[in-house]
């Protein structure tokens, strides 16, 4: 047995660890896959939204049948508000998730590549930033960005207002960035070291090896976990309602207030939120798992 030759930056941090004395890593099995959320979601039967819908619709009838305001009125109220909730509310959730994903992916790829840099300070800093934002509560990050960020940016005479939802995008981008960074690092490290050695023996420089040989192989492997994070992110966008951004949960609350805060409204309105998120994320999770299986066979 020949000890494996370290590839600077990619395997170097482990150098010197004795195999038997490696610290216990509670999160290690998770990292190999990272698709737990999508797997769980994709495994749910497609009938779940129908059942949820039926339960939400039946709730007023069961719980408040004795009152004057019953199921019919509650559903009528939901029906009146539904187009507004979808086009103004849920559309903003999608918009936030979309921009967050774009910014988070761009920043995450850069951070992930820094994590495998040959320069130790760069590598360590990138690792620290990744761990910091990956393991912080999202809501705390959101509050920090919301309160620390100016509501307008002045460039000379130009005043560019920064809407609340834009600040929310920046806040949510931080944990997404950190998780994409881990996906990139993990994907690069999953390429067998023989690929690096073959490239090196063919006179490829490190940068050429990374961009022309390693990353093209990683690309497919990164798609399923990347989509997994998109689904998780979309589910997390209602967090920004706590900061007053007018997305679907905020608007649902306002709609119920406009309907005199009848308690019968709670379950149909929030139930509808659940169903629409499920309906949006479920196909993504199914596609993620299909791609995962497809790419797994090819490798």
């Amino acid at each position, binding site marked *: *047995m*020949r*000890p494996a*030759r370290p590839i600077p930056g990619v395997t170097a941090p482990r150098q010197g660890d004795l195999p038997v004395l490696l610290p216990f890593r509670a999160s290690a099995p998770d990292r190999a896959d990272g698709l737990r959320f999508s797997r769980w979601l994709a495994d749910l039967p497609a009938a779940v939204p129908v059942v949820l819908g039926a339960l939400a619709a039946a709730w007023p009838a069961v719980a408040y049948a004795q009152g004057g305001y019953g199921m019919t009125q509650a559903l009528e109220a939901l029906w009146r508000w539904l187009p507004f909730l979808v086009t103004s509310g849920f559309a903003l959730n999608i918009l936030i998730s979309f921009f967050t994903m774009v910014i988070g992916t761009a920043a995450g790829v850069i951070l992930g590549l820094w994590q495998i840099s040959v320069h130790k300070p760069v590598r360590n800093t990138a690792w620290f930033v990744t761990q910091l934002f990956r393991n912080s509560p999202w809501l705390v990050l959101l509050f920090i960005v919301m309160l620390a960020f100016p509501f307008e940016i002045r460039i000379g005479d130009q005043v560019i207002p920064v809407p609340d939802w834009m600040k929310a995008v920046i806040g949510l981008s931080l944990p997404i960035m950190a998780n994409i960074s881990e996906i990139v690092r993990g994907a690069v490290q999953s390429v*067998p070291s*023989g*690929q690096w*050695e*073959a*490239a*090196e*023996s*063919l*006179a*490829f*420089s490190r940068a*050429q090896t990374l961009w*022309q*040989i390693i990353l*093209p*192989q990683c690309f497919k492997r990164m798609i399923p976990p990347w989509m997994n994070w998109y689904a998780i992110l979309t589910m997390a966008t209602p967090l920004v309602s706590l900061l007053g951004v007018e997305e679907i949960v905020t608007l649902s609350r306002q709609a119920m207030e406009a309907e005199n805060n009848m308690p019968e409204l709670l379950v149909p309105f929030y139930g509808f939120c659940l169903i629409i998120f499920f309906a949006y994320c479920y196909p993504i999770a199914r596609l993620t798992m299909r791609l995962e299986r497809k790419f797994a066979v*090819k*490798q």
Partner: protein
Amino acid sequence: MTETAWTPDQPIISIRDVHKSFGALEVLKGVTFDVMKGEVICIIGPSGSGKSTLIRCINALNDIQAGSITVEGLEVHAPKLDKLALRKKVGMVFQQYNLFPHKTALENVMMAPLKVLKEPKADVEARARALIRKVRLDGKEDSYPGELSGGQQQRVAIARSLAMRPDVMLFDEVTAALDPETVKEVLVTIKELAAEGMTCILVTHEMGFAREIADHIYFTDRGVIVEHGPPKTFFTEARDPRTREFLSQIL
């Protein structure tokens, strides 16, 4: 000055008292030998004796702790080694082929001359196609490595190395991972290469093959060269008990 004038009458590879350790584990304990241009050298020995490490040191995939290795006068372990110059001189083929799985056979062969040497595409492609014919894989140009057998992949790997027009080829147990029926096709390719005058260093367990093609055989054990000689005398007149024991187990 890392490169001294080299003329073909001098050893193309000169290895002097090379020591190599992985941490506390000393793998090479003072290895010295020369290889002349056009020679075919086989290194044999039990696993863990440092054979693979030795040839990996020749193209600087492994560093060394003491001693020196020169290839055509180029000091391989000089701090300011021109790696490009070294890797143009020395080609290497690995046990696990290590083809680039996202590229076709032809692209695998073309990639390094095209991207590293920046040679014109038409020239590179013509050369790559000729090399693929040479390793008898006509018709497999557009196959991906995953669609090829182990023996076919290994021959693509040889063609890929040759595309850089090296002066020396290193073969690191290139048939060890192959099915028995595909070993022969790879050995035939190497034999043709040797017959054309390519300088070859092989780490191998194929004793019959070593006997057939080697000009000189080196037997390593526990990091030192125990015994060496031309195949004619090496296999029949081994003196060292360790060599004899190894040969009696293998032959």
